[in-house]
C-alpha cells in the first residue's frame, strides 16, 4: 500500500553540533561551571575537599529528585516524599534500637517507604479524579503524624548501634560513599527515562494522558509503579539521612519535597508534564548544591540564600519565555 504521490518523508535526525550545544542541558552545564567559578572567587575555602565533605547532606535529597522527575514528567506531583522519609527513618531507627541487624533495618526503611508510596499510588489510581497535590498533601500530614506517634513524646530517637550506618556514611578517599550511590542511581534513572520503552510511555502519559491510554499505554499501572518507586527512593533517602543524623526526629525530611521539585524545575522539567530531561535536573541539582555550599561558606544569611534560589527558579522559567516572546515579535 505505497503512497500514490511517491512523496518521501525525511527520517534523518538533526545531529548537528549546534543543536546539541544549544539545548537546555548545555546551558545548565555552563551555569554549573559559572556557579563554581563564582564560588571559588567569593570563598577562599571553596575547594574540592570541602565540597565533597559538605556534600552528603545535600546529596541525599537527590534520591528524591530522580523519582520526582518521573512524577513531574507524568504531570503529577508528590508533596508527601519528605514525610515518607521521616516515617522510614523513624521505623529504621526503631528497628535498629530493637536489636535488628543493619541490613534488616535497611530493608525495613525501604519497605516502609514503598508502602507509603503504594498508598499514594493506590488512592490516585483508584480515584483518578483526585488531584495528586491534594491527596499527597493529606498523606503528608498523615505520614508525619504516624512518625510523630511512633516517636512518642520525646519526638526524637537516637541510634544505639551506629555500626552499619557508619559504613554508608563513610568516605572512599575524600569522596563520600553516598556520592557513588547517587551517581549509580542517576545513571539508572536517566537511562530508563530517556532510552527505554517505559520512559517513552511516561512521556506519553505526561504529554496527553487520554491519547496515551487510547494507544494502549497502561497509564494507571505506570502511575502506580512510579509512585511506589518514589516511596522506595524515599526509603533509601531515609536510610542515608539516618546515617548522618544517627536517628530521626519529627522534623526529619521536612521541606525535602520542595527542594526536589525546585531542582527538577530548575533543570527544565515542567510541572505540567511531558517535558524536560532528567539529565538537566541532575545538573541543576549539583548546581544548586554547589551554590548553597559556596554561599554558606561566606556566611550569607540563610533566608537570603533562599531568596536567591527563588529568583533563580523563576528566572529559569521566565527568561526563556520572555526571550521567546521577544524573538517572536521580531520575526512578526
Amino acid at each position, binding site marked *: *500500500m*505505497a*503512497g*500514490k*504521490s511517491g*512523496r*518521501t*518523508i*525525511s*527520517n*534523518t*535526525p*538533526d545531529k548537528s553540533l549546534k543543536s546539541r550545544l544549544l539545548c537546555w542541558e548545555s546551558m545548565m552545564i555552563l551555569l554549573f561551571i559559572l556557579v563554581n567559578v563564582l564560588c571559588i572567587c567569593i570563598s577562599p575555602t571553596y575547594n574540592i575537599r570541602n565540597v565533597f565533605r559538605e556534600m552528603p547532606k545535600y546529596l541525599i535529597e537527590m534520591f528524591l529528585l530522580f523519582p520526582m522527575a518521573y512524577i513531574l514528567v507524568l504531570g503529577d506531583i508528590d508533596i508527601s516524599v519528605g514525610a515518607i522519609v521521616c516515617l522510614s527513618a523513624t521505623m529504621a531507627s526503631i528497628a535498629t534500637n530493637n536489636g535488628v541487624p543493619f541490613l534488616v533495618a535497611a530493608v525495613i526503611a525501604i519497605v516502609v517507604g514503598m508502602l507509603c508510596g503504594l498508598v499514594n499510588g493506590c488512592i490516585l489510581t483508584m480515584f483518578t479524579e483526585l488531584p495528586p497535590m491534594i491527596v499527597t498533601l493529606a498523606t503528608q500530614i498523615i505520614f508525619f503524624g504516624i512518625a510523630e506517634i511512633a516517636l512518642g513524646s520525646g519526638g526524637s530517637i537516637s541510634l544505639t548501634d551506629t555500626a552499619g550506618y557508619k559504613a554508608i556514611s563513610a568516605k572512599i578517599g575524600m569522596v563520600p560513599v553516598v556520592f557513588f550511590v547517587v551517581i549509580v542511581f542517576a545513571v539508572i534513572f536517566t537511562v530508563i527515562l530517556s*532510552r*527505554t*520503552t*517505559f*520512559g*517513552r*510511555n511516561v512521556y*506519553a502519559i505526561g*504529554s*496527553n494522558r*487520554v*491519547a*496515551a*491510554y*487510547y*494507544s*494502549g*499505554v*497502561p497509564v494507571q499501572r505506570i502511575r502506580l509503579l512510579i509512585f511506589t518507586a518514589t516511596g522506595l527512593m524515599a526509603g533509601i533517602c531515609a536510610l542515608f539521612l539516618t546515617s548522618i543524623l544517627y536517628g530521626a526526629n519529627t522534623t526529619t525530611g521536612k521541606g525535602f519535597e520542595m527542594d526536589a521539585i525546585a531542582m527538577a524545575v530548575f533543570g527544565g522539567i515542567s510541572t505540567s508534564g*511531558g517535558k524536560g530531561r532528567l539529565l538537566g535536573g541532575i545538573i541543576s541539582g549539583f548546581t544548586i548544591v554547589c551554590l548553597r555550599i559556596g554561599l554558606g561558606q561566606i556566611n550569607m544569611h540563610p533566608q537570603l540564600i533562599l531568596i536567591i534560589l527563588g529568583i533563580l527558579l523563576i528566572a529559569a522559567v521566565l527568561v526563556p519565555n520572555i526571550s521567546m516572546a521577544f524573538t*517572536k515579535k521580531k*520575526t*512578526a
Partner: protein
Amino acid sequence: MSEYILELQGITKIFPGVKALDNVHFQLKRGEVHALMGENGAGKSTFIKVITGVHKPEFGKMFLEGKEVKFKTPKDAQESGIAAVYQHPTSYPHLSVAENIFKGHEPMKGPMIDWKKMNRDADALLQQLNADFKSVAEMGTLSVAQQQMVEIAKALSTNARIIILDEPTASLTKRESEELYKIVDKLKESGVSVIFISHRFEDMYRLASRVTVFRDSQYIGTYNVDEITNNDLIKAMVGREIKDLYPKPEVEIGPELLRVEGLSRTGYFKDISFNVRAGEIVGFTGLVGAGRTEVMESICGITKADAGKVFLEGKELKAKSPQDASKNGIILLPEDRQKQGLIMDWSLGRNVTLPVIGKYAKYGFNNEEAEREVSKELLESVDTKAVSIFDKVNTLSGGNQQKVVVAKALAQDIKVVIMDEPTKGVDVGAKAEIYQIMGELAKQGYAVIMVSSEMPEILGMSDRIIVMCNGKMTGELLCHEASQEGILELAMEKHNGGNNS
C-alpha cells in the same frame, strides 16, 4: 448606501512565518446567505477571525455598510452587529446556558447582573430555536448539537445584522442539520445576512445563494450557487479534479472476525449484537449521542460493559484496557484526534510508533533507528504531507493528522479496525485519500468498522450499515438496499415519540 452590507478588500494577515491570508476579497449582500468554502488551511477560519476582530490584518480594508471600520477587539465587532458561531464550540462548560448566551453583554440592573431577566431572555431565545432544554442547564451536560444551538442563540442575543456560522453542521446529524437550516431560513427572512462555512455541499445547495472559494490563503472566486457544478467547485477548492470520492474496491468477503453479542452498558447502550467479517466495511450510523462511540469504546476495553460478550475469530475476548484490545488486533481510531488520537506536541514518528515501541525494543531499550525506519515507511504509505518524521503533529492539517492516526494503527498487528468519524473536520481532498486507505484496508482482509454521521460516506463506503438510535440497534441494512431516507427513519425511530431525555 452600498449594495453590500460587508465588504473586505485586499486583506492580508501574517502569522510568524506564514501568510494566513493573502490579498483576499469578500462581499456580502444584505440579507443573503453566503457560503465560504475551501480546504482546511485555506484561511477561512482566519478570515472569520479578521471579520470578528479577533485578528488584526496587516493590510487591507473593511467596510461595513459602506463605511470603513477597524475592529480592535471582538467587542467592537459585536457592537457593530457582527456575531460568530465558531467551529469548535467556544462555550464555558461549567456555566449555565443563559450565561453562555449572554457572556460579555449580560443584562444588568445597576452594577449587578440581572439573573432573572437573563434567564427569561435566554429561554425566549431558546424557544425561538425550538430548543428542548432550559436556560439554567449546565452547558457541559448538553450534547454537541444542543451546544451548537446555544451558540446560535448567543449570536442572536446580540441582535446581530451579520451572523457567521463556522462549520455549524460538522458535528450535527442529518435531522439536526435540518433544524439548523430552518433557523438560518428564519434569520434570512428577518433580514440578517449570514456567512456560512462548510465542507458539506448539501449545506451550500440548501442554503446559500452565492459561494466564495479560498485556496492556499488566496481568494479564488465568487460564484452563484445555481450556476456552478459540483465538480467545478471541487476543482476550485482543491485545485485539481477528484474523480471518484468513494473509491470502494471490490473485495471478497472472508470469514467472520468480530462478533458482539448482547453488549450493554447502563445509561449508554443496550443489547448490541452484530458481526464483522474480513474484508468487510460496516458502517455505524445514527444521531450524535445514539451510543455508537460508546459501543466501540466498550469493545476496545476503554470503558467496561455491564453485560454481553465480544468474540474475536470465534474466541471470547475480554478486553480490560485498550492495551488488551490492540494486543489482540482490535484497533480504535478515536473520534477526537487532538485529545484521544495523537499527542499533539510530539513528532509524527514518535506518535506512529507509540503503541509498538515495545515491539522493536531490546531488553526494554528503544531501538530508535528501527522506529524511524518504520514510521517513515508507514507515513509515506498513507501519503502524509510532511517534510520529516520529526515535524510536530500540531503543524499538520486535520486530514494529515488523521493520516498519522491511520499510520499509527497500521504499525500494529491489526485484524479489526474501528474508525470513529474518520473524516470529521477533514477537507474534501484529504477525505478522498482517507476513503482510499479505508478501501485498501478492506482489500487486505481486515475487518473495518466505520462510525459516521455523514450519510454520503456511510452509503458510499459501507458493505453493511447498522443504525443505532438512543442506545439501541434499530436496523441493519445491506448497502444496496439502503437509502438516506430509510436510514434516517431508523435513526429517529424513538425520537418521533418525543422521548429525548
